[in-house]
Protein backbone atom coordinates (compact mmCIF):
# COMPACT_ATOMS: atom_id res chain seq x y z
CA UNK A 1 0.00 0.00 0.00
CA UNK A 2 1.24 3.51 -0.85
CA UNK A 3 0.99 6.61 1.27
CA UNK A 4 -2.32 8.50 0.95
CA UNK A 5 -1.66 12.10 1.81
CA UNK A 6 -4.88 13.85 2.75
CA UNK A 7 -4.08 15.91 5.84
CA UNK A 8 -0.43 16.04 4.88
CA UNK A 9 -1.07 16.77 1.17
CA UNK A 10 0.66 20.14 1.39
CA UNK A 11 2.81 19.55 4.46
CA UNK A 12 6.05 19.82 2.50
CA UNK A 13 5.16 23.04 0.65
CA UNK A 14 7.56 25.81 1.60
CA UNK A 15 5.85 28.51 3.63
CA UNK A 16 2.60 26.54 4.05
CA UNK A 17 2.45 27.77 7.65
CA UNK A 18 1.68 31.26 6.32
CA UNK A 19 -1.81 32.35 5.31
CA UNK A 20 -0.93 33.39 1.77
CA UNK A 21 0.66 30.07 0.84
CA UNK A 22 -2.06 28.10 2.64
CA UNK A 23 -4.74 30.01 0.70
CA UNK A 24 -2.88 29.46 -2.57
CA UNK A 25 -3.22 25.71 -1.94
CA UNK A 26 -6.94 25.93 -1.37
CA UNK A 27 -6.83 26.88 2.29
CA UNK A 28 -10.03 28.32 3.84
CA UNK A 29 -12.02 27.67 0.63
CA UNK A 30 -13.84 24.86 2.46
CA UNK A 31 -14.62 27.14 5.40
CA UNK A 32 -16.00 29.85 3.11
CA UNK A 33 -18.18 27.36 1.26
CA UNK A 34 -19.39 25.65 4.43
CA UNK A 35 -20.35 28.89 6.15
CA UNK A 36 -22.25 30.19 3.14
CA UNK A 37 -23.75 26.99 1.72
CA UNK A 38 -24.05 24.54 4.60
CA UNK A 39 -25.97 24.65 7.86
CA UNK A 40 -24.18 23.58 11.06
CA UNK A 41 -26.27 20.39 10.93
CA UNK A 42 -24.92 19.69 7.42
CA UNK A 43 -21.36 19.89 8.73
CA UNK A 44 -22.18 17.55 11.63
CA UNK A 45 -23.83 15.17 9.15
CA UNK A 46 -20.73 15.15 6.93
CA UNK A 47 -18.58 14.18 9.93
CA UNK A 48 -21.13 11.54 11.03
CA UNK A 49 -21.18 10.13 7.47
CA UNK A 50 -17.38 10.04 7.34
CA UNK A 51 -17.18 7.67 10.30
CA UNK A 52 -14.20 9.70 11.58
CA UNK A 53 -12.99 8.36 14.92
CA UNK A 54 -11.03 10.43 17.44
CA UNK A 55 -7.34 10.41 16.64
CA UNK A 56 -6.16 11.15 20.18
CA UNK A 57 -6.24 7.51 21.20
CA UNK A 58 -9.74 6.51 22.27
CA UNK A 59 -11.13 6.25 18.72
CA UNK A 60 -14.61 7.46 19.66
CA UNK A 61 -16.73 8.54 16.64
CA UNK A 62 -16.30 12.30 16.34
CA UNK A 63 -19.72 13.03 14.83
CA UNK A 64 -21.42 11.22 17.69
CA UNK A 65 -19.37 13.14 20.24
CA UNK A 66 -20.63 16.35 18.62
CA UNK A 67 -24.20 15.08 18.67
CA UNK A 68 -24.20 14.49 22.45
CA UNK A 69 -24.32 18.19 23.31
CA UNK A 70 -27.58 18.99 25.06
CA UNK A 71 -29.91 21.54 23.48
CA UNK A 72 -30.52 23.53 26.62
CA UNK A 73 -29.54 27.00 25.51
CA UNK A 74 -26.22 27.05 27.36
CA UNK A 75 -23.12 28.31 25.59
CA UNK A 76 -21.08 25.51 23.99
CA UNK A 77 -17.32 25.30 23.82
CA UNK A 78 -14.79 23.50 21.66
CA UNK A 79 -11.43 22.51 23.11
CA UNK A 80 -8.58 21.18 21.02
CA UNK A 81 -6.39 18.69 22.85
CA UNK A 82 -2.83 19.54 21.77
CA UNK A 83 -1.22 18.01 24.84
CA UNK A 84 0.59 15.40 22.78
CA UNK A 85 2.86 13.44 25.11
CA UNK A 86 2.29 9.76 24.48
CA UNK A 87 5.80 8.31 24.03
CA UNK A 88 6.18 7.44 20.35
CA UNK A 89 3.65 9.99 19.09
CA UNK A 90 4.65 13.20 17.31
CA UNK A 91 1.98 13.82 14.66
CA UNK A 92 0.31 16.79 16.37
CA UNK A 93 3.70 18.44 16.86
CA UNK A 94 4.24 18.04 13.10
CA UNK A 95 0.75 19.27 12.14
CA UNK A 96 1.07 22.36 14.34
CA UNK A 97 4.53 23.22 13.04
CA UNK A 98 3.72 22.64 9.38
CA UNK A 99 -0.01 23.26 9.05
CA UNK A 100 -1.21 25.63 11.78
CA UNK A 101 -3.85 27.06 9.44
CA UNK A 102 -5.30 23.60 8.78
CA UNK A 103 -5.95 23.30 12.52
CA UNK A 104 -7.46 26.80 12.67
CA UNK A 105 -9.71 26.01 9.68
CA UNK A 106 -10.74 22.66 11.16
CA UNK A 107 -11.52 24.25 14.51
CA UNK A 108 -13.58 26.99 12.90
CA UNK A 109 -15.58 24.39 10.97
CA UNK A 110 -16.07 22.28 14.09
CA UNK A 111 -17.06 25.30 16.21
CA UNK A 112 -19.57 26.36 13.55
CA UNK A 113 -20.96 22.81 13.44
CA UNK A 114 -21.55 22.60 17.19
CA UNK A 115 -22.50 26.28 17.57
CA UNK A 116 -19.59 27.32 19.78
CA UNK A 117 -18.80 31.03 20.02
CA UNK A 118 -15.52 30.27 21.79
CA UNK A 119 -12.84 27.65 21.25
CA UNK A 120 -9.58 26.86 23.01
CA UNK A 121 -6.39 25.13 22.00
CA UNK A 122 -4.70 23.49 24.97
CA UNK A 123 -1.03 23.05 24.02
CA UNK A 124 1.40 21.18 26.18
CA UNK A 125 3.75 23.66 27.86
CA UNK A 126 6.73 22.42 25.89
CA UNK A 127 5.09 23.49 22.60
CA UNK A 128 6.32 27.07 22.86
CA UNK A 129 7.27 27.21 19.18
CA UNK A 130 3.91 25.71 18.27
CA UNK A 131 2.22 28.33 20.43
CA UNK A 132 3.99 31.10 18.54
CA UNK A 133 3.14 29.58 15.15
CA UNK A 134 -0.51 29.27 16.11
CA UNK A 135 -0.54 32.77 17.58
CA UNK A 136 0.66 34.01 14.20
CA UNK A 137 -1.85 31.86 12.31
CA UNK A 138 -4.74 33.08 14.48
CA UNK A 139 -3.69 36.71 13.97
CA UNK A 140 -3.52 36.20 10.19
CA UNK A 141 -6.83 34.33 10.07
CA UNK A 142 -8.54 36.99 12.19
CA UNK A 143 -7.24 39.80 9.98
CA UNK A 144 -8.50 37.92 6.91
CA UNK A 145 -11.96 37.41 8.40
CA UNK A 146 -11.69 33.65 9.00
CA UNK A 147 -11.95 34.14 12.76
CA UNK A 148 -13.42 36.74 15.05
CA UNK A 149 -16.53 38.77 14.34
CA UNK A 150 -18.62 37.72 11.32
CA UNK A 151 -16.52 34.85 10.04
CA UNK A 152 -16.38 35.04 6.22
CA UNK A 153 -18.92 37.86 6.35
CA UNK A 154 -21.63 35.69 7.91
CA UNK A 155 -23.51 36.01 11.20
CA UNK A 156 -21.24 33.44 12.79
CA UNK A 157 -18.51 34.74 15.15
CA UNK A 158 -15.76 32.78 16.84
CA UNK A 159 -13.11 33.65 19.37
CA UNK A 160 -10.19 31.22 19.31
CA UNK A 161 -7.86 31.25 22.31
CA UNK A 162 -4.53 29.61 22.96
CA UNK A 163 -3.51 28.11 26.27
CA UNK A 164 -0.19 26.57 27.27
CA UNK A 165 -0.04 23.89 29.93
CA UNK A 166 3.05 23.50 32.07
CA UNK A 167 4.29 19.94 31.80
CA UNK A 168 2.12 16.97 32.81
CA UNK A 169 1.32 13.93 30.62
CA UNK A 170 -1.98 13.33 32.42
CA UNK A 171 -3.37 16.58 30.99
CA UNK A 172 -3.85 14.68 27.72
CA UNK A 173 -6.74 12.93 29.52
CA UNK A 174 -9.63 15.16 28.53
CA UNK A 175 -11.07 15.89 31.96
CA UNK A 176 -7.62 16.48 33.48
CA UNK A 177 -7.01 18.83 30.57
CA UNK A 178 -10.16 20.77 31.43
CA UNK A 179 -9.09 21.11 35.06
CA UNK A 180 -5.69 22.34 33.93
CA UNK A 181 -7.30 24.79 31.52
CA UNK A 182 -9.30 26.09 34.47
CA UNK A 183 -6.03 26.82 36.26
CA UNK A 184 -5.83 23.81 38.55
CA UNK A 185 -3.73 20.68 38.99
CA UNK A 186 -4.50 18.35 36.11
CA UNK A 187 -6.46 15.61 37.86
CA UNK A 188 -9.05 13.52 35.98
CA UNK A 189 -12.66 14.24 36.85
CA UNK A 190 -15.48 11.88 37.70
CA UNK A 191 -17.44 10.81 34.61
CA UNK A 192 -20.38 11.22 34.27
CA UNK A 193 -21.00 14.03 33.82
CA UNK A 194 -19.14 13.87 30.54
CA UNK A 195 -17.67 17.06 29.06
CA UNK A 196 -20.59 17.13 26.62
CA UNK A 197 -22.89 18.07 29.49
CA UNK A 198 -20.47 19.65 31.98
CA UNK A 199 -17.05 20.39 30.53
CA UNK A 200 -14.96 23.54 30.61
CA UNK A 201 -16.39 25.97 33.19
CA UNK A 202 -19.27 23.52 33.56
CA UNK A 203 -20.46 24.27 30.03
CA UNK A 204 -21.23 21.72 27.32
CA UNK A 205 -17.85 21.03 25.74
CA UNK A 206 -16.42 18.99 22.91
CA UNK A 207 -12.77 17.98 23.31
CA UNK A 208 -11.09 16.80 20.09
CA UNK A 209 -7.51 15.95 19.19
CA UNK A 210 -5.45 18.06 16.75
CA UNK A 211 -5.44 15.42 14.00
CA UNK A 212 -9.20 14.87 14.39
CA UNK A 213 -9.93 18.56 13.91
CA UNK A 214 -7.56 18.79 10.94
CA UNK A 215 -9.39 15.85 9.31
CA UNK A 216 -12.67 17.80 9.45
CA UNK A 217 -11.41 20.08 6.65
CA UNK A 218 -11.01 17.42 3.90
CA UNK A 219 -14.17 15.66 5.14
CA UNK A 220 -16.26 18.80 4.70
CA UNK A 221 -14.45 19.59 1.43
CA UNK A 222 -15.01 16.21 -0.23
CA UNK A 223 -17.95 14.84 1.77
CA UNK A 224 -18.28 12.17 4.42
CA UNK A 225 -18.76 9.34 1.92
CA UNK A 226 -15.46 10.16 0.24
CA UNK A 227 -13.61 9.82 3.56
CA UNK A 228 -15.51 6.69 4.51
CA UNK A 229 -14.48 5.02 1.25
CA UNK A 230 -10.89 5.01 2.52
CA UNK A 231 -9.54 2.77 5.25
CA UNK A 232 -11.58 -0.06 6.70
CA UNK A 233 -15.30 -0.25 7.34
CA UNK A 234 -14.99 0.38 11.07
CA UNK A 235 -11.86 2.57 10.93
CA UNK A 236 -12.45 4.83 7.94
CA UNK A 237 -10.16 7.39 6.42
CA UNK A 238 -6.47 8.02 6.61
CA UNK A 239 -4.30 8.15 9.71
CA UNK A 240 -0.96 9.73 10.43
CA UNK A 241 1.34 7.05 11.81
CA UNK A 242 4.30 8.31 13.83
CA UNK A 243 7.13 5.91 13.05
CA UNK A 244 10.04 5.90 15.49
CA UNK A 245 12.74 3.68 16.89
CA UNK A 246 15.02 1.29 15.01
CA UNK A 247 14.18 2.53 11.50
CA UNK A 248 16.19 4.10 8.70
CA UNK A 249 13.76 6.95 8.08
CA UNK A 250 11.63 7.61 11.15
CA UNK A 251 8.91 10.23 10.69
CA UNK A 252 5.20 10.79 10.16
CA UNK A 253 3.55 8.78 7.38
CA UNK A 254 -0.09 9.09 6.34
CA UNK A 255 -1.78 5.92 5.12
CA UNK A 256 -5.28 4.62 4.81
CA UNK A 257 -6.39 2.93 8.02
CA UNK A 258 -5.67 -0.76 8.05
CA UNK A 259 -2.31 -0.46 6.31
CA UNK A 260 -0.19 -3.53 7.08
CA UNK A 261 2.46 -2.88 9.72
CA UNK A 262 5.12 -4.22 7.32
CA UNK A 263 4.20 -1.51 4.76
CA UNK A 264 4.60 1.18 7.41
CA UNK A 265 8.01 -0.15 8.35
CA UNK A 266 8.99 -0.25 4.68
CA UNK A 267 7.80 3.34 4.16
CA UNK A 268 9.99 4.38 7.08
CA UNK A 269 13.01 2.92 5.34
CA UNK A 270 12.95 -0.49 6.99
CA UNK A 271 15.33 -1.67 9.68
CA UNK A 272 19.01 -0.77 9.83
CA UNK A 273 21.38 -2.99 7.90
CA UNK A 274 22.04 -6.32 9.57
CA UNK A 275 19.28 -5.97 12.14
CA UNK A 276 16.19 -8.10 12.57
CA UNK A 277 12.73 -7.20 13.79
CA UNK A 278 12.06 -7.98 17.42
CA UNK A 279 8.87 -6.22 18.50
CA UNK A 280 6.68 -3.20 18.03
CA UNK A 281 4.65 -0.98 20.30
CA UNK A 282 1.90 -0.04 17.84
CA UNK A 283 0.07 2.73 19.69
CA UNK A 284 2.47 4.58 21.94
CA UNK A 285 3.72 3.48 25.36
CA UNK A 286 0.15 2.75 26.46
CA UNK A 287 -0.13 -0.15 24.02
CA UNK A 288 0.90 -3.79 24.46
CA UNK A 289 3.81 -5.20 22.44
CA UNK A 290 3.37 -7.23 19.28
CA UNK A 291 6.03 -9.57 17.86
CA UNK A 292 7.00 -10.91 14.45
CA UNK A 293 3.90 -13.07 14.06
CA UNK A 294 1.96 -9.80 13.63
CA UNK A 295 4.33 -8.16 11.15
CA UNK A 296 1.54 -7.84 8.54
CA UNK A 297 -1.24 -6.89 10.95
CA UNK A 298 -3.74 -4.30 9.71
CA UNK A 299 -3.11 -1.09 11.62
CA UNK A 300 -6.65 -0.07 12.53
CA UNK A 301 -8.58 0.26 15.78
CA UNK A 302 -10.42 -3.05 15.69
CA UNK A 303 -7.75 -5.36 14.34
CA UNK A 304 -5.23 -4.15 16.91
CA UNK A 305 -7.79 -4.43 19.72
CA UNK A 306 -8.49 -8.02 18.68
CA UNK A 307 -4.76 -8.72 18.89
CA UNK A 308 -4.76 -7.52 22.51
CA UNK A 309 -3.16 -4.16 21.89
CA UNK A 310 -4.35 -0.84 20.46
CA UNK A 311 -3.85 1.74 17.76
CA UNK A 312 -3.99 4.50 20.38
CA UNK A 313 -2.58 7.71 19.00
CA UNK A 314 -0.72 5.91 16.20
CA UNK A 315 2.75 6.10 17.71
CA UNK A 316 4.59 3.08 16.31
CA UNK A 317 7.87 2.32 18.09
CA UNK A 318 9.90 -0.36 16.33
CA UNK A 319 12.43 -2.46 18.25
CA UNK A 320 15.15 -4.53 16.61
CA UNK A 321 17.20 -7.42 17.96
CA UNK A 322 19.67 -5.15 19.77
CA UNK A 323 17.00 -3.83 22.15
CA UNK A 324 16.68 -5.31 25.63
CA UNK A 325 12.98 -5.76 26.36
CA UNK A 326 13.52 -5.71 30.12
CA UNK A 327 15.38 -2.41 30.02
CA UNK A 328 12.94 -0.87 27.53
CA UNK A 329 9.89 -1.94 29.55
CA UNK A 330 11.48 -0.68 32.76
CA UNK A 331 12.01 2.72 31.15
CA UNK A 332 8.35 2.83 30.11
CA UNK A 333 7.32 2.08 33.68
CA UNK A 334 9.63 4.84 34.98
CA UNK A 335 7.65 7.19 32.73
CA UNK A 336 4.28 6.05 34.08
CA UNK A 337 5.52 6.20 37.67
CA UNK A 338 6.67 9.77 37.07
CA UNK A 339 3.45 10.82 35.35
CA UNK A 340 0.87 9.20 37.64
CA UNK A 341 -1.18 12.09 39.01
CA UNK A 342 -1.43 10.32 42.36
CA UNK A 343 -5.20 10.35 42.65
CA UNK A 344 -5.77 6.57 42.73
CA UNK A 345 -3.80 4.28 45.03
CA UNK A 346 -3.45 1.33 42.59
CA UNK A 347 -1.81 3.59 40.01
CA UNK A 348 0.21 5.79 42.36
CA UNK A 349 1.64 2.93 44.44
CA UNK A 350 1.46 0.24 41.78
CA UNK A 351 3.58 2.04 39.20
CA UNK A 352 6.20 2.73 41.87
CA UNK A 353 6.22 -0.92 42.89
CA UNK A 354 6.40 -2.18 39.31
CA UNK A 355 9.29 0.16 38.57
CA UNK A 356 11.15 -1.30 41.56
CA UNK A 357 10.47 -4.89 40.47
CA UNK A 358 11.50 -4.16 36.88
CA UNK A 359 14.65 -2.42 38.09
CA UNK A 360 15.81 -5.45 40.05
CA UNK A 361 14.94 -7.71 37.13
CA UNK A 362 17.00 -5.49 34.81
CA UNK A 363 19.90 -5.61 37.26
CA UNK A 364 19.81 -9.41 37.24
CA UNK A 365 18.79 -9.80 40.88
CA UNK A 366 15.14 -10.64 40.29
CA UNK A 367 13.49 -14.02 40.55
CA UNK A 368 10.88 -15.95 38.63
CA UNK A 369 8.36 -15.04 41.34
CA UNK A 370 8.86 -11.39 40.32
CA UNK A 371 7.37 -12.19 36.92
CA UNK A 372 4.18 -13.46 38.49
CA UNK A 373 4.22 -10.48 40.82
CA UNK A 374 4.34 -8.15 37.79
CA UNK A 375 1.32 -9.87 36.24
CA UNK A 376 -0.52 -9.78 39.55
CA UNK A 377 0.24 -6.07 39.97
CA UNK A 378 -0.89 -5.41 36.40
CA UNK A 379 -4.21 -7.13 37.16
CA UNK A 380 -4.63 -4.96 40.23
CA UNK A 381 -3.94 -1.68 38.44
CA UNK A 382 -5.61 -2.20 35.06
CA UNK A 383 -9.32 -1.47 35.21
CA UNK A 384 -9.12 -0.36 38.84
CA UNK A 385 -8.34 3.29 38.42
CA UNK A 386 -10.37 6.42 37.83
CA UNK A 387 -9.03 7.10 34.34
CA UNK A 388 -7.45 5.07 31.55
CA UNK A 389 -3.92 5.83 32.77
CA UNK A 390 -3.89 2.67 34.90
CA UNK A 391 -4.66 0.43 31.91
CA UNK A 392 -2.06 2.29 29.87
CA UNK A 393 0.63 1.90 32.52
CA UNK A 394 0.45 -1.90 32.60
CA UNK A 395 -0.04 -2.80 28.93
CA UNK A 396 3.62 -2.94 27.94
CA UNK A 397 4.80 -4.72 31.08
CA UNK A 398 2.08 -7.38 31.11
CA UNK A 399 2.57 -8.19 27.43
CA UNK A 400 6.36 -8.23 27.84
CA UNK A 401 6.17 -10.89 30.54
CA UNK A 402 3.88 -13.02 28.36
CA UNK A 403 5.85 -12.58 25.13
CA UNK A 404 9.40 -12.38 26.45
CA UNK A 405 9.41 -14.48 29.61
CA UNK A 406 12.64 -16.20 28.54
CA UNK A 407 14.41 -12.87 28.20
CA UNK A 408 13.45 -11.95 31.77
CA UNK A 409 14.66 -15.34 32.99
CA UNK A 410 17.95 -14.86 31.11
CA UNK A 411 18.51 -11.69 33.12
CA UNK A 412 18.55 -13.47 36.43
CA UNK A 413 20.40 -16.51 35.16
CA UNK A 414 23.11 -14.22 33.67
CA UNK A 415 22.95 -11.74 36.59
CA UNK A 416 22.37 -8.95 34.11
CA UNK A 417 21.44 -8.25 30.54
CA UNK A 418 22.66 -11.03 28.24
CA UNK A 419 22.48 -8.70 25.23
CA UNK A 420 24.73 -6.17 26.90
CA UNK A 421 27.18 -8.88 27.99
CA UNK A 422 27.27 -10.21 24.44
CA UNK A 423 28.10 -6.74 23.12
CA UNK A 424 30.81 -6.08 25.74
CA UNK A 425 32.27 -9.61 25.68
Amino acid at each position, binding site marked *: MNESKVLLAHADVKGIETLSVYERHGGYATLKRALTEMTPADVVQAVLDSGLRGRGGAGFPTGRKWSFLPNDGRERLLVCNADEGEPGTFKDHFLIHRLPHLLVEGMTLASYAIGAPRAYIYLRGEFL*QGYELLEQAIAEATAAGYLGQHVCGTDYSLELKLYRG*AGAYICGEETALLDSLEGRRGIPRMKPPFPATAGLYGLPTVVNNVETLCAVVPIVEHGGEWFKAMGTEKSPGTKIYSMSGALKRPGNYEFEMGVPLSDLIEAAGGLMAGRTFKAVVPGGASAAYLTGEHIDIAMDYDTLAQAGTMLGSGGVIVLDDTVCIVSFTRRAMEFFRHESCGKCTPCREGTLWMDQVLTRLEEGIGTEADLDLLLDLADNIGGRTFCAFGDAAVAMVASSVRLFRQEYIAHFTHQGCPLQKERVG
Partner: protein
Amino acid sequence: MTEALRERCEAIKATYPEAQSALIPILHALQDSYGYVTPQAVEEAAELMAMTTAEVEGVVSFYTLFHRKATGRYHIQVCDNLACQLRGTDELLAHLKEKWQLEPGGPSPDGIFSLERVECLAACGYAPVAQVNLRYYYHLTPEKADQVLSGLADGEEARGERI
Protein backbone atom coordinates in the same frame (compact mmCIF):
# COMPACT_ATOMS: atom_id res chain seq x y z
CA MET B 1 6.97 43.37 40.77
CA THR B 2 7.67 45.91 38.08
CA GLU B 3 4.83 47.91 36.63
CA ALA B 4 5.41 46.32 33.21
CA LEU B 5 5.14 42.81 34.65
CA ARG B 6 2.00 43.71 36.56
CA GLU B 7 0.47 45.07 33.37
CA ARG B 8 1.39 41.90 31.53
CA CYS B 9 -0.26 39.77 34.21
CA GLU B 10 -3.39 41.95 34.22
CA ALA B 11 -3.54 41.63 30.43
CA ILE B 12 -3.39 37.84 30.77
CA LYS B 13 -6.24 37.95 33.28
CA ALA B 14 -8.30 39.99 30.85
CA THR B 15 -7.73 37.37 28.13
CA TYR B 16 -9.68 34.71 29.99
CA PRO B 17 -13.28 35.46 30.89
CA GLU B 18 -13.09 32.95 33.73
CA ALA B 19 -10.34 34.39 35.90
CA GLN B 20 -8.87 31.21 37.34
CA SER B 21 -7.68 30.11 33.89
CA ALA B 22 -5.13 32.93 34.07
CA LEU B 23 -3.14 31.31 36.88
CA ILE B 24 -0.91 29.05 34.77
CA PRO B 25 -0.21 31.73 32.10
CA ILE B 26 0.60 34.20 34.90
CA LEU B 27 2.99 31.71 36.49
CA HIS B 28 4.68 31.31 33.08
CA ALA B 29 5.02 35.10 32.85
CA LEU B 30 6.45 35.39 36.37
CA GLN B 31 8.90 32.55 35.70
CA ASP B 32 9.97 34.20 32.42
CA SER B 33 10.67 37.37 34.35
CA TYR B 34 12.35 35.97 37.49
CA GLY B 35 14.04 32.93 35.95
CA TYR B 36 12.09 30.52 38.16
CA VAL B 37 9.01 30.49 40.37
CA THR B 38 10.44 32.27 43.38
CA PRO B 39 8.62 32.43 46.73
CA GLN B 40 7.91 36.05 45.85
CA ALA B 41 6.36 34.95 42.54
CA VAL B 42 4.02 32.60 44.41
CA GLU B 43 2.89 35.45 46.67
CA GLU B 44 2.43 37.79 43.73
CA ALA B 45 0.43 35.21 41.77
CA ALA B 46 -1.75 34.60 44.83
CA GLU B 47 -2.37 38.32 45.21
CA LEU B 48 -3.17 38.80 41.51
CA MET B 49 -5.52 35.83 41.47
CA ALA B 50 -7.06 36.47 44.93
CA MET B 51 -6.01 32.97 45.99
CA THR B 52 -4.02 31.66 48.94
CA THR B 53 -0.32 30.91 48.47
CA ALA B 54 -1.13 27.28 49.36
CA GLU B 55 -3.50 27.07 46.41
CA VAL B 56 -0.87 28.53 44.10
CA GLU B 57 1.79 26.15 45.50
CA GLY B 58 -0.55 23.26 44.79
CA VAL B 59 -0.65 24.17 41.12
CA VAL B 60 3.06 25.06 40.80
CA SER B 61 4.17 21.77 42.35
CA PHE B 62 2.06 19.71 39.92
CA TYR B 63 3.75 20.84 36.72
CA THR B 64 7.29 19.98 35.68
CA LEU B 65 7.95 23.18 33.73
CA PHE B 66 7.71 25.36 36.82
CA HIS B 67 11.18 25.50 38.32
CA ARG B 68 11.69 26.12 42.01
CA LYS B 69 15.40 26.92 41.70
CA ALA B 70 17.45 28.99 39.31
CA THR B 71 18.34 27.38 36.01
CA GLY B 72 21.19 28.31 33.69
CA ARG B 73 20.71 31.06 31.13
CA TYR B 74 20.16 28.17 28.73
CA HIS B 75 18.12 25.39 30.27
CA ILE B 76 18.63 22.19 28.29
CA GLN B 77 15.93 19.54 28.50
CA VAL B 78 17.15 16.25 27.05
CA CYS B 79 14.49 13.63 26.38
CA ASP B 80 15.54 10.18 27.51
CA ASN B 81 12.24 8.46 26.95
CA LEU B 82 11.72 5.34 24.80
CA ALA B 83 12.33 6.49 21.22
CA CYS B 84 15.27 8.70 22.23
CA GLN B 85 16.74 5.72 24.12
CA LEU B 86 16.68 3.78 20.87
CA ARG B 87 18.48 6.61 19.04
CA GLY B 88 21.38 7.34 21.36
CA THR B 89 20.24 9.69 24.11
CA ASP B 90 22.47 7.84 26.62
CA GLU B 91 25.51 8.63 24.45
CA LEU B 92 24.36 12.24 24.21
CA LEU B 93 24.00 12.54 27.98
CA ALA B 94 27.39 10.88 28.51
CA HIS B 95 28.94 13.31 26.05
CA LEU B 96 27.38 16.35 27.74
CA LYS B 97 28.80 15.12 31.03
CA GLU B 98 32.27 14.39 29.71
CA LYS B 99 32.81 17.33 27.40
CA TRP B 100 30.63 20.02 28.99
CA GLN B 101 30.55 18.82 32.62
CA LEU B 102 26.78 19.02 32.44
CA GLU B 103 24.69 16.77 34.64
CA PRO B 104 21.10 17.04 35.78
CA GLY B 105 20.93 19.51 38.63
CA GLY B 106 21.74 23.14 39.18
CA PRO B 107 23.37 25.46 36.68
CA SER B 108 27.00 25.21 35.59
CA PRO B 109 29.41 27.32 37.71
CA ASP B 110 29.38 30.08 35.08
CA GLY B 111 25.58 30.08 35.15
CA ILE B 112 25.30 29.55 31.40
CA PHE B 113 23.86 26.04 31.19
CA SER B 114 21.68 23.73 33.21
CA LEU B 115 20.59 20.24 32.24
CA GLU B 116 17.46 18.25 32.94
CA ARG B 117 16.40 14.81 31.77
CA VAL B 118 12.79 15.01 30.70
CA GLU B 119 10.00 12.72 29.56
CA CYS B 120 8.80 12.41 25.97
CA LEU B 121 8.88 15.70 24.03
CA ALA B 122 6.65 14.40 21.20
CA ALA B 123 9.42 14.47 18.62
CA CYS B 124 10.32 10.76 18.56
CA GLY B 125 10.90 10.64 14.80
CA TYR B 126 13.69 13.17 15.15
CA ALA B 127 15.39 11.52 18.13
CA PRO B 128 17.47 12.13 20.09
CA VAL B 129 15.80 15.40 20.92
CA ALA B 130 16.35 18.23 23.35
CA GLN B 131 14.92 21.65 24.01
CA VAL B 132 16.92 24.70 24.98
CA ASN B 133 14.68 27.23 26.69
CA LEU B 134 11.76 25.24 25.22
CA ARG B 135 13.05 25.45 21.65
CA TYR B 136 13.53 22.18 19.82
CA TYR B 137 16.82 20.76 18.56
CA TYR B 138 16.38 17.54 16.60
CA HIS B 139 18.68 14.63 15.69
CA LEU B 140 21.16 15.62 18.39
CA THR B 141 24.37 13.73 17.79
CA PRO B 142 27.24 14.60 20.14
CA GLU B 143 28.82 16.61 17.27
CA LYS B 144 25.66 18.60 16.69
CA ALA B 145 25.25 19.17 20.42
CA ASP B 146 28.79 20.63 20.48
CA GLN B 147 27.88 23.05 17.68
CA VAL B 148 24.68 24.16 19.37
CA LEU B 149 26.24 24.58 22.82
CA SER B 150 29.32 26.36 21.45
CA GLY B 151 27.08 28.84 19.68
CA LEU B 152 25.05 29.44 22.83
CA ALA B 153 28.19 29.81 24.95
CA ASP B 154 29.28 32.51 22.47
CA GLY B 155 26.08 34.38 23.16
CA GLU B 156 23.82 33.15 20.34
CA GLU B 157 20.11 33.14 21.00
CA ALA B 158 18.43 29.74 21.43
CA ARG B 159 16.22 29.84 18.35
CA GLY B 160 15.60 26.15 17.94
CA GLU B 161 14.75 24.36 14.73
CA ARG B 162 11.63 23.79 12.69
CA ILE B 163 10.56 20.31 11.72
